[in-house]
């Protein structure tokens, strides 16, 4: 294993991310912040929503921002670089095995997702305040959950980015990301689906459910949420599953 090569690849991705920082920032945060503003500030302020909703919404917004960032940060460059320009070729020719190149992409995506998660907290808090009650009661659980959320988003990005062509990007967002976000218990807690028992079971295949519920458990322990152990187990499962699928797809695309 050539760690020098691995870190050089990571440095390249960090360099490109820094160069595109402003674009990434707007791309990642504008939509969730507008959502926070309308639902957390306007709807609550005008009395359509109860004030507790602010605190319920924030973990969901963090989960969405992280998921979106991780998927986007890995999938979009991969899709572009695997296209006919084959830009990724110079990295595939770096002296390291092809699997490690994919893992480097996942690590870079995870780091971006973590930054997104940590940046959106103060931003959303600024938009929502006053009346948000979040606390990190168990820092270790919180840390574990955000790392697992970053992992599933980046591995998901690897799997999607290595399986799709440029002409299907629109489809990916409308068929994968949009339902995932709306059925991801980000804008409402899982317990809110009690009255829709079938839907409540079906959404459990959506990894974002565990991301939202896990962050809710870590940040707003008072609110009802899925058991933390189940959340961690499920996130771990999705991390591994998506990583395995992603590595396989990447390998197929990288070598003809």
């Amino acid at each position, binding site marked *: 294993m*050539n760690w*020098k*090569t691995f870190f*050089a*690849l990571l*440095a*390249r991705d960090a*360099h*490109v991310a820094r*160069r*595109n920082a402003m674009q990434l920032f707007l791309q990642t945060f504008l939509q969730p912040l507008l959502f926070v503003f309308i639902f957390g500030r306007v709807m609550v302020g005008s009395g359509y929503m109860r004030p507790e909703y602010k605190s319920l919404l924030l973990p969901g917004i963090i989960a969405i921002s992280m998921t979106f960032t991780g998927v986007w940060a890995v999938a979009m*460059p991969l899709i572009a670089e695997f296209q*006919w*320009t*084959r*830009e*990724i*070729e*110079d*990295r*595939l*020719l*770096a*002296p*390291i*095995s*092809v699997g490690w190149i994919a893992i480097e992409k996942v690590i870079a995506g995870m780091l971006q997702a973590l930054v997104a998660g940590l940046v959106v907290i103060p931003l959303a808090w600024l938009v929502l305040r006053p009346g948000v009650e979040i606390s990190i009661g168990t820092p270790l659980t919180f840390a574990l959950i955000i790392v697992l959320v970053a992992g599933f988003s980046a591995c998901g990005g690897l799997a999607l980015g290595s399986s799709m062509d440029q002409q299907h990007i629109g489809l990916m967002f409308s068929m994968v990301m949009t339902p995932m976000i709306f059925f991801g218990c980000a804008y409402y807690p899982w317990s809110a689906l009690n009255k829709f028992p079938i839907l409540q079971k079906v959404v459990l295949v959506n990894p974002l459910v565990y991301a939202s519920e896990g962050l809710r458990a870590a940040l707003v322990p008072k609110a009802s949420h899925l058991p933390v152990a189940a959340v961690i187990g499920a996130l771990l499962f999705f991390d591994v599953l998506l990583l395995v699928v992603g590595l396989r797809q990447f390998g197929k695309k990288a*070598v*003809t």
Partner: protein
Amino acid sequence: MAVGVRTQDLRKVYHSAPPLGAGGGFVMRADAKGAKQQPKAQIPALDGLSLEIRAGEIFGLLGPNGAGKSTTIGILTTRVRPTSGQAWIGEHDVWKEQAEVKFLIGVVPQRPNLDFSLTAREILVFHGAYFGIGSKLRNERADALLDKFKLTERGNQMVRGFSGGMMQRLSIARAMMHDPQVLFLDEPSAGLDPQTRILLWDIIREYHQAGKTVLLTTHNMEEADALCQRIAIVDHGRMIALGTPEELKASIPGGFLLRLRFGNQTDDLLQRLQALKGVREVRAADSTGLDVYADRGGSLIPEIASLAASCGAELSDVHISEPSLENLFLHHTGRSLRD
């Protein structure tokens, strides 16, 4: 220490369209496994290619598009998985020891695959970093290569706006950045203007003089002739001739090729042409053409013309070419390199 390259009985069959720049022969045929199965598209690109490229040699793979040249380079550079057969760079098995192999090789692809998110200089510097070259040395090398390839002024620009020739130059600079023992160039001068082509040839020769092995593919026989110490002619994934350019040219019967066309052609014309002094071989090219391989060129024309007249055939076109790799290719395959 110079490093050689070897392949043994390489075969590659694509099951879907091969990537651009690694085109196979595009022959569709039914899967041999049985009639019950749905026929599957099989695109054979390499059909048992064995090569031995000596350490420190400039070796050329010459052949038309789809001959399997790019697939050969793809396999030797870890980018294509062979269906069967083996390949080695020095002592390293290309498929089993990929990271070691990648240290030894530099690759210039048929179409530039530069990292569009970086500037020209960054492309070189990061490439050096991937190969573990220290910060000071990689910056120095990047500057030296930019200068050598006349790209210093554009060094800090994103490569998106570069012309094809500039991208090609930068691709070569990138491949040389980690000072590889074996340099692969896939159609290096395709699309270059003559001036840049000469610069490129000089750089390849200079690199070779430093004791490096160079493997290039081309369908330009002038390039193969000018640069290569040995050439393998490939077609349909097989090697059809191997030798120095001189040896190969000497192997064409007679050396001269006269391509004749007739308005109408009679049966005994071929036999009677064969009997002319200096004619080595006559082949029917198609219904109206004959290829005559001979020891002499222009001086045969009056005799051919009078012979044709006496047979009642009307000579409509004559093309004389001197000994060349193009003729050699035609002699072996019945097709022109440009077909």
